[in-house]
């Protein structure tokens, strides 16, 4: 007999919201090797559409280097990717690895959205 599968871990969540020509990938919790394929899939799906992307890590409490590798790869594919990083959990590995120069990083989602506001360009 097969035992029922254990309930999925709730240590992280990755939710994708689409707003007109903008996609927000909102992550929360602990992002590590377990979360990596989920984030990979979320970003790969978006890149196919060619839309502008904001990755919101404001609620991320742990972020390993493999996750930052996913962001750098996505950014190289789509230069319009913006990362919301507020807390030390994300800021510190970004800074120590010198990745800030390879990513567009903002402190909150509002700043990211303003950056995407078409009115600002008019």
């Amino acid at each position, binding site marked *: 007999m097969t035992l029922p599968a254990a309930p999925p871990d709730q240590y992280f969540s990755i939710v994708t919201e689409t707003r007109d020509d903008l996609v927000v990938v909102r992550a929360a919790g602990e992002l590590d090797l377990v979360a990596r394929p989920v984030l990979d899939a979320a970003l790969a799906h978006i890149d196919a559409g060619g839309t502008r992307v904001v990755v919101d890590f404001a609620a991320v409490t742990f972020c*390993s280097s493999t996750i930052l590798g996913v962001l750098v790869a996505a950014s190289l594919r789509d230069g319009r990717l913006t990362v919301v990083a507020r807390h030390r959990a994300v800021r510190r590995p970004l800074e120590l690895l*010198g990745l800030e120069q390879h990513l567009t990083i903002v402190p909150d989602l509002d700043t990211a959205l303003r950056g995407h506001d078409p009115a600002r360009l008019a």
Partner: protein
Amino acid sequence: MYRHTSEPHFHRDDVDAEPVEAAVPARSGGPVDRPGRASFEELVPALDDEAAALRRQLALWLEELPLDADSGHDIILAAYEALANVVAHAYPGERGWIRLYAEWSGDVLTVVVSDTGCGVPEEPRRASGASTSGGRGLLLIDKVTDQLHVETGKHGTRVTMIWRPAALRHAPAPREG
């Protein structure tokens, strides 16, 4: 049957045999009244979810030490990067194990992550920058540790990470028993 998870080995030398609860001050961030020692050891399969669970266990253990939050975060980050390297690289195409040993002794906090895998090639130890293919783990560990030793060969790797956090430095030196 494959899984083996021992209970965390939690050990303290209490120099004057007070109850364990009283031996370690609550997380205050300030100087502690008395020195302490504690160790933690765990052996888990080299799998991504096991490494994540072990990181959480280490975090719980660290919470009981008189560490500041930033040092605690650096220790958890470095330890996990070492665990993740084992999961991702040490046992290509086969199963294996990770051992984590952590020790607090006076003003020194040591974490050792070891495996019996294939060893770390020279190139990933240098990778950094905008490389997309990982290789940042050891670089990050190096940045957040006070001392890092990597011993690696065909029969395994041992990563020894050492910190001397200011919060522990302010504590009196442990008396030798």
